[in-house]
């Protein structure tokens, strides 16, 4: 029953970003981290660790695949559907691979007033990303044809005083005026070698 649900609900769409991530597999480090995280909650409340486990998985493998989802469910001794309902609710979790560098531009008022809409347009232009298929909920995450970049709007990143702001993977950038879009990309492009 539960696997049936997964089969019908988990999109397995490959994106150009897949080349930069290993397919999900359980490493001793991941196992250890999961066990540590689970120990932070009462023994009969393992389910509480689901967000932390999903973060650990997504951090390493880029997104939450069906295999990853089943592994998390097994670790927490809950039905896979309970993990899926979490993954599908929170904007912070992805079900397909992002680019190697995932950029989240703040869309909300103070950043929009400072030009974050134009910043997004500029980034789309420079990376060749087409966001026209993204819905008002910013889905799906749009990946560049080369797989190196992906773009998404985020809601207020809590730095409105230094607008416009964005996150690139885990790095926070403030005061990113639209004309600084190229500099931002160059920084990551050249950090690659």
């Amino acid at each position: 029953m539960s696997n049936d649900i997964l089969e019908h609900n988990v999109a397995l769409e490959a994106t150009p970003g897949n080349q930069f991530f290993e397919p999900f597999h359980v490493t001793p480090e991941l196992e250890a981290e999961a066990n540590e995280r689970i120990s932070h909650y009462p023994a009969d409340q393992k389910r509480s660790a689901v967000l932390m486990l999903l973060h650990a998985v997504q951090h390493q493998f880029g997104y939450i695949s069906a295999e990853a989802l089943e592994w998390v469910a097994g670790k927490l001794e809950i039905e896979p559907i309970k993990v899926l309902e979490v993954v599908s609710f929170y904007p912070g979790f992805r079900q397909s691979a992002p680019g190697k560098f995932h950029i989240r531009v703040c869309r909300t008022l103070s950043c929009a007033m400072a030009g974050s809409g134009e910043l997004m347009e500029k980034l789309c232009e420079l990376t060749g990303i087409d966001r026209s298929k993204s819905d008002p909920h910013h889905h799906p995450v749009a990946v560049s044809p080369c797989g190196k970049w992906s773009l998404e709007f985020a809601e207020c990143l809590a730095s409105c005083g230094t607008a416009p702001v964005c996150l690139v993977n885990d790095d926070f950038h403030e005061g990113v005026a639209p004309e600084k879009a190229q500099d931002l990309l160059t920084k990551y492009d050249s950090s690659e070698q």
Partner: protein
Amino acid sequence: MSVTYKAGKEPHEKEYRLIFKNVDREGWDTSLDTYENEGGYEMLNKALKMETQSITNEVKASGLRGRGGAGFPTGVKWGFIPPNNTKPVYLICNCDESEPGTFKDRYIVHQDPHQLIEGMVISCFAVGAHTAYIYIREEFPEAATIVEKAIAEARAKNYVGKDVLGSGFDCEIYVHRGAGAYICGEETGLIESLEGKRPYPRIKPPYFPAAMGLYLAPTIVNNVESLCHVVHILRMGGEEYAKLGVARNTGTRILCVSGDVKKPGYFEVEVGKVTFRELLFDMCGGPKEGREFKAVIPGGSSSKILRCDESFKIRQGDSEVNLDFMDLPLDFDTLAAAGSMAGSGGVIVLDDSRKMSWVLNNINHFYAHESCGQCTPCREGSTWMRKLSDRIVEGKASPTDIDTLESVAYQIDGKTVCAFGEASSWPVEAIVAKFKDELVSETSTNNDDAILTPEEASATKYL
């Protein structure tokens, strides 16, 4: 010891720094050594020698009101734990910081994590909690690392963990990360999220966290800034602390200013001691070149907008006074009397270059995106409001759409499981009430007669 700040980050002379004393400070870092060098964890030591009830009494005497949004008295909240409780008590620090316009907790968790940890351990001791969680929004990945490192350092010195400083009191603190959903800032949504579920807020009553919170056990949820204030209340004593600020609006609070001012940023001030004029002109350098202030959203995007040319009747003591917008002091009671709220301290400033339809549409997109979807008025209504304001900015709206917009807002307000319903409808109610002419001027009766296919016609009927 003299305190100096990084160039360009010096506090304004009207500021009063307690919580932000170490933010952007020269030579300051997040290490435990640095914090200890300035008397860090001395208040924890003091607290552990006090009666737990007398700590709560100090917090009550301080008059501290929660800095997360609702402004509820912290000491009173602590007192709501049922006296005959036998379950474990939990403390949760709300670091979801997701109300648009708010950016204060960010600096505390990135630059002064030990202040927060000290505040949390003291608060745990006061309310009898042995486990605490810091719920950090997912978009603060660096903060999660910094705070976890700080907890580990504190544990190594026995400020956290078993038998804290030999007092016999056990206290563990863990970091829990969110995943990009605004509704996790609402305390019962946060609790559901911590339980590993979708963050659907719970109905109050009966689910007041202090009585039935995490795992249905008594749980105190407080904002990051609120918990930091506890350290200073213990240092100063509740009564001394209450001398800061004004009556019923005590202490300091951090105002976050963004939008159309010359110098946006954070300012820690005594509550109620600074007016909009002082904040916007003196501290933020006034409007941008050639511009004039038009309107201000005073306490995060959910709070009702105020026009800069409005004046208000405000009760002061026994008399009523007429105050122009610029002369309003920014405290909880005054902003409530002006029909808005102090909320989270996020002040968003708009100048005369801004179209209100565009501003409203941006806000509506936020709420339509963030509704958890659990109750119909909010889930459907927030999307309807978004679609209506989409129509206005696209020039496709007719004047009656403005009335529809207003009516949708009033059908959400007060009819939902959680206060998100108000958060999403108040901006609409206020902008329509105060800028109706401007909104109507962007509509056209010609749009009434637009030829629609039957599908389009029925779609617009239901929006």
